[in-house]
Structure formats: C-alpha cells, structure tokens
C-alpha cells in the first residue's frame, strides 16, 4: 500500500561524463598556475564547454529551459543572469552536496567553473577565436531510444492556468496489453517541458487511481498519489522525469512487469508561465522478451507522524531509522519533503562502524526534487542502520513557506502539509534459506518497523498483516488485520483480508461477518463476493453461495475459479444443467482448471440418460 516510483537508470555514457567533469573538463586558462600569462576568458575556449555539458541539454528548443543556450549570442544575452544563478548554484539545478558516493549524471559545476563564468562576464563576455569553439553536443531529437513499441497519450489535456502557485495534476494512462509484458525502457514526455518541474510515473495494477478520477480521462489534482495494492507486489523501479532526463534502458535483468489492466499514473508538478497552457503528456514504452531476473525493491522510510511544526520554528527536526535485515545493494535514492524542508540528510552506519553519507541536501528545493541514482551500487550489509534526518523551517525567513504569516503545519499529502519521506531502491544480495524471497524478509522488517513507529496508522498494520499472511503466520496476521480494522472499521480491503485469514483458520462466522462489512462498503468488490461465497458454502448455505458466486461472475465473467465455484454451489442445490454451463465456462477460460474438469465429468455421469 505504498507509492511506487520508477526511473530509468543512467547510462554508462553519463557516468563517464561525470568522471570527465571531475578531471577538470573546461578548466579555465585564466586561472592556471603562476607561470601562465593571465589570458582572458573567452566563450569559445572556456565557456562553451561548460554550457554545452551542463546547460544545453535543457536550454535548447523544445526542452525545459526558458531560452536556448547554444551559441555565443544566446549566452551573452543572459550573461549576468547566468553569472548570478551559477553563483547561488540555482543553476544548473543539482541539490546534493558533493560527497564520497558519486551519483550518475551529476550536473554540478565546480567552484572553478563558476569562477570562470564570473570572470568571463566581468571581462566583458569575449567571444574568442573561432578555432577554440568545441563541437556542439549532438542531441537526439524525438524519442530518445527510437520509436517506442507503444505510445500512451493522456486522453485530455490539463489546462494550466496563467497564474497562481504551483499546480499538481495526475494523468491516468491505461496500458493497452492483453497479457503480461516486460519493459526495458520507458520515456516520459511530460508535455511542455518548460512548465513541468518534475513527473513521477507510478504503476497502478489494481485501478486504484481510477477510483479518484471523477470524469474518465480527465485526471485529478493532488501533490501525492496513493496507489493501493492488495497483494505484496514489490515494484522495483523509479520512473522519474526531471528537466534534462535522458531515457535509457533498465539494467540487464531488471525489466519492469506490466500486466493486462495496468494503469500508469503520471504525477506532475507544474508551474504557471503567465499564460494558460495545455499539458498533455505522453509515455513511450519499449518492450523486451527477457523477463526480470533481478528484483530490486523500494524501501520507504518516513516519519510523517512526527511532523507537527509550530509556526515560526526554524529548525524542526524529524528522524527515522531502519536496520537492514539482509545484505543489499543500494541503487538509487529519492528524498522528499514539501515547502518547509530545509536540510535533508540520509546516512548509513555499517556494522563495522563505518559511516556513509548517502545523500545530503543542505538547501532543499521542492522545485528541483529528483531521484538520484548512484554511479555504482552502494553495498550495505545486513544490520546496517539507515538514518534519515530532515530539518524544516517554518519561519517567515523561508520564502517558500506557503503560510504568511507562518502557521502550524502537520504531516499530510496536500502541498501545504509537510512530508518526511526517503525512498531507497535496493537490490537484495546473497542466498536466502528455503529459496524465500528476500524482499519479503525486508518488507516484513520494514512493516514491523512502521507498526512500532506508528501504531495508530492503518497501513502499518495492514502491510505487516499481509506479509505475515503470505508466509503463513496466520495468528499474528489476524491480530494485525484486526488492528487495521479497528482503526478503519469499514475499510473494504482490510475487512476482506481479515475475513480471508479467519476463513483459512476455520472461523466461518467471523469470516462471513467481515466479508459482509467489506461488501457494505464496496458492493462491487469481486474478491469479497467470491470469498463470502466460499464461506457460505463451507457453512452449507448453498443458496447464499450461489448468490455470491453469481455476483462475482457478473463482476468478472472471465474468472475461471468463480465460474467453477458457482458451478459447484449450483450442483449442490441439484441445479445440474446450470452447474454444467458454468463448469464449461470455467474450462473455456482455463482449460487446465482441475476442479471444473472433474466436477463436470461427475455431472455428466450423473445426468447421463436423464431428460436434462
């Protein structure tokens, strides 16, 4: 029951770029050693290499930058502005401090490069000799990885108003596939890139976002999207777009699974430009025939419950820490706070006492939030403690404070609420007993941590219960489902799950009661009708079972088990002709359905020679 975010990883080429930058690419001659004559800084020799590498990817037609920076004239026209925004490190946007761990495609100017730009402006923005000008970068136009296999386009554009504060809009993009497919790459085209600050693509396998959308295809507002998943289905990918993002293939073995009926939900952060603008994103999907063999997962640390920030507080601290139950490789990291976030730090304390800074953002800026991928995976052994420490500024000094004068702010999903989240993409390492899925070990430890930290939160109990149920720890699972239901007594999903756990334990009355609560909340809930049918059949109430299986079949005629069970309940009532037709339906859908085949044979024997 958590938001899942995906991002295509960076290519090796970009990693190479980052190293190239670190070796002094574009270093200025004017500041070279004492023996060198003080040559003047020129665009062609000193500035163009910096601009080409760090600016032009976005500052070119069709990209996010509001004006192009491709030629001497382009750059000169914004010279003092460029000087100012590089001095404050507003541009190029890159929030993390430099540290021992390197990120892929790091877009951070060195102090020396910033000084070179200042010197160039101060010296009168000289053009320099034509022979000094490097080759212009060669940008791929159109889809970055060639023509996608499928292009999804938002059904209706969102009209971004001309003025006002930041806007958050979510587009639902159904994936038109009839069977499970594997995806090697996804390219997000968020619409007019000048207006989109960032976009997160979420995989919604159970239509949970559709329930929020009022008019089909129109999307819905909101800064945070909740994607509900009723089963443990750890998604492994960050799919994230920010200005300058280059689409790339997932690493070998890490294809993304898409099933029939899956929706992609694009969560966009938009900024009005001064005129009304239509935003209509599209998504390019590239398939592969290689299923995933490596299964990274997203670990979500958070402490929203601790966010109760008094008006005027300048340094409000929120922390969370989690001890890893298994060895992992850390692949990427995504810190997230809203407008009051100031200093965001994540560290890892290894069992041998080593401390690593995973990410440190000293000047958090929601507008430039991003997923950061490590240039190399960071190995974190079992028992490593991951710590997050976020500092919030709710004073008048924080320009982006949404309240004027400052007001008390609590944790929550609206942009005026605050959040303290840290997502980590980890790849479990090593062998695990009985071939168990190490993600389950991790997920259970995480869910237990959430329950300990926030015992009043519904999701904490539900998530832990689901993991316990999955590994067969049914008594504890029932306890946790009951805790979830006591927090949200009419929640259909939790009542259905609790009912299923009680049914497995043989508590038929308890199960029936829970399924009825689930169906009172969500009358068209297939799973609850199906489960209630089973519970009633176990009680010997076949009339009731026929009614429930009948409803399940009406809701989903393509479910072979529901068809087969309806057949059995009908057969129990002696309605053999009807039973036969539902067994036949089950076998049409799934020719391997053993129950339907055997029961059908039995009915055929019984009815042989009868007038029916």
């Amino acid at each position, binding site marked *: 029951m958590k938001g899942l975010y995906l991002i295509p990883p960076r290519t090796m080429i970009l990693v190479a770029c980052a190293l190239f930058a670190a070796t002094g690419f574009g270093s200025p001659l004017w500041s070279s050693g004492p023996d060198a004559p003080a040559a003047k800084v020129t665009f062609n020799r000193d500035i163009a290499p910096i601009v080409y590498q760090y600016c032009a990817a976005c500052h070119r037609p069709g990209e996010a930058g509001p004006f192009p920076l491709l030629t001497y004239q382009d750059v000169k026209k914004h010279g003092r*502005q460029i000087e100012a925004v590089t001095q404050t490190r507003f541009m190029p946007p890159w929030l993390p401090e430099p540290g021992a761990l390197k990120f892929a495609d790091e877009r951070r100017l060195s102090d020396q490069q910033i000084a070179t730009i200042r010197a160039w402006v101060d010296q009168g923005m000289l053009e320099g000799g034509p022979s000094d000008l490097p080759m212009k970068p060669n940008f791929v136009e159109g889809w970055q990885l060639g023509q996608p296999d499928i292009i999804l386009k938002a059904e209706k554009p969102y009209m971004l108003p*001309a*003025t006002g504060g930041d806007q958050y809009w979510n587009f639902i993009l159904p994936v038109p596939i009839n069977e499970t497919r594997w995806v090697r790459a996804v390219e997000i085209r968020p619409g007019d890139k000048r207006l989109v600050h960032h976009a997160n693509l979420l995989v919604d396998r159970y239509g949970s976002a559709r329930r929020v959308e009022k008019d089909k295809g129109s999307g819905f507002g909101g800064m945070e999207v909740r994607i509900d998943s009723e089963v443990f289905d750890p998604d492994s990918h960050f799919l994230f777009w920010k200005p300058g993002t280059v689409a790339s293939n997932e690493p070998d073995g890490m294809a993304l699974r898409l099933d029939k009926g899956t929706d992609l939900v694009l969560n966009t952060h938009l900024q009005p430009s001064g005129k009304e603008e239509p935003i209509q994103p599209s998504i390019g999907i590239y398939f592969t025939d290689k299923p995933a063999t490596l299964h990274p997962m997203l670990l979500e640390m958070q402490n929203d419950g601790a966010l109760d920030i008094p008006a005027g507080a300048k340094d409000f601290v929120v922390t969370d820490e989690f001890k890893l139950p298994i060895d992992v490789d850390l692949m990427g990291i995504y810190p997230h706070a809203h407008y009051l976030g100031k200093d965001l730090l994540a560290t890892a304390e290894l069992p041998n006492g080593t401390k690593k800074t995973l990410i440190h953002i000293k000047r958090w800026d929601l507008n430039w939030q991003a997923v950061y991928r490590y240039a190399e995976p960071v190995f974190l052994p079992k028992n490593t403690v991951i710590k997050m420490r976020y500092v919030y500024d709710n004073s008048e000094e924080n320009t982006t404070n949404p309240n004027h004068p400052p007001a008390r702010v609590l944790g929550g999903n609206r942009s005026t609420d605050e959040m303290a989240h840290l997502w980590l993409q980890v790849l479990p390492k090593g062998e695990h007993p009985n071939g168990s899925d190490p993600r389950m070990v991790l997920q259970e430890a995480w869910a237990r941590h959430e329950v300990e930290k926030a015992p009043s939160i519904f999701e904490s109990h539900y998530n832990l219960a689901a993991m316990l149920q999955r590994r067969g720890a049914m008594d504890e699972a029932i306890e946790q489902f009951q805790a979830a239901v006591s927090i949200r007594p009419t929640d259909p999903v939790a009542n259905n799950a609790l009912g299923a756990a009680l049914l497995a334990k043989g508590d038929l009355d308890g199960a029936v009661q829970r399924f009825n609560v689930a169906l009172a909340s969500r009358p068209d809930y297939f799973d609850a009708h199906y489960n209630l049918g089973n519970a009633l059949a176990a009680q010997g109430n076949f009339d009731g079972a026929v009614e429930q299986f009948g409803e399940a079949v009406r809701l989903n005629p393509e479910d072979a088990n529901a068809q087969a069970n309806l057949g059995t309940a009908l057969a129990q009532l002696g309605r053999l002709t009807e039973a036969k037709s539902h067994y036949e339906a089950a076998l049409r859908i799934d020719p391997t359905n053993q129950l339907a085949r055997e029961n059908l044979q039995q009915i055929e024997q019984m009815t042989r020679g009868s007038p029916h």
Partner: protein
Amino acid sequence: MLVATLLQAASGPEGPSPAPARAGESSSSTAKSVEALDLAGKAVNPFELAAGKPVVLIFVRTDCPISNRYAPTIEGLSQKYSGTAVLMLVYPDKAESSANIQKHLQEYGYKIAALRDPQHALVKLGQVEITPEAAVFNGKGELIYHGRIDNWYKEFGSARSAPTTHELDDAIQAALNSQHLAPASVSGVGCYISDLQ
C-alpha cells in the same frame, strides 16, 4: 504615509537591500525629449501621449521567464488604472522584432500598449536594470519609483506562493495622489537589461 511604506519595503528584514543610489546614471534624456518606438516603428514619446497623467513603464523581454510569469499581474494593473494613468510595456531588446513582440503580446493575453526601446532611452530615464522592473513618473514627468513590481520573487528560483508587498501598485497610487517623493527603489529579480547591450 506612502513614503514610509516604500522605505520600509526597501529596508525591511526580508526585502533586498535598497539599490545603490543611481543619481549619477541619469542620462541627458528628459521626460520631455525621450523617444522610443511603437510597434510600427514610429518614434513616440510616452509623456506626450500621457498628457499630464502619470506614466508607468514596465520593462519586459519575450525570453525572460520571470517577466513572463508576471503577465497576468501587469495586465491586471493596466486594467486597474485604465483611464487614470498610462501604463506601457517596454521591450528593451534591440534584437527583438515588432512581429515577435506582437506574437508575445497575443500569447500572454496582453492588451496593454507596448513600446520598443532599442537605444535604452527609457531604460536610462527609468533607471531600471532588470526585466521585470517598472518606472513610475508622476504627472509632471518626475520619476517617483523604479524597481520591482512586488516581492513575489526573493531571488532566482525562490518565489513566494503569492507576493506580500506591492511596490508598483503603491507607487502608482502615490503618483495619482500627486505625492512628491524622492525616487524610491527596490531591485527586481529577473533578467539583466545590461546583457542586451
């Protein structure tokens, strides 16, 4: 009273420092002689058009994202003071064609009149340095305010969800009330006009 408002804005704890005195920068231009171009290329003097009303020049570029975001605010002020003061957009980029400016006006829903100032005569007269900044002249053609429109932006990339001070609106009110002020200034955040020389 307004003097106090402006001075407070200029020296308030959260506002930028007041711009250094720019008295020495005033050019030989005067309100009476200064000329810019209309979009047909014809020389015009905004003060002659104003015929004694306050003149408000708001400097913008087609490629400045911050001045573009101000379009609805600027147009709103133009509507608000329609008939009582003469508000005009000024495009100081000499490389910008009239056709491009027309397109820009249309795209951003501007109905306000626009001038080109390729020689920066109005820039000098109004003592502005940034797009968007404004210069406010009273009915006698005296500069009473130059600088930012409001405090929406604190610096590049740092904008409030909504402005909390409204220097330009206050200054237009002062001009209409014939208040005689020493020119007050609060620098804007945006694109440097000097980059266009």
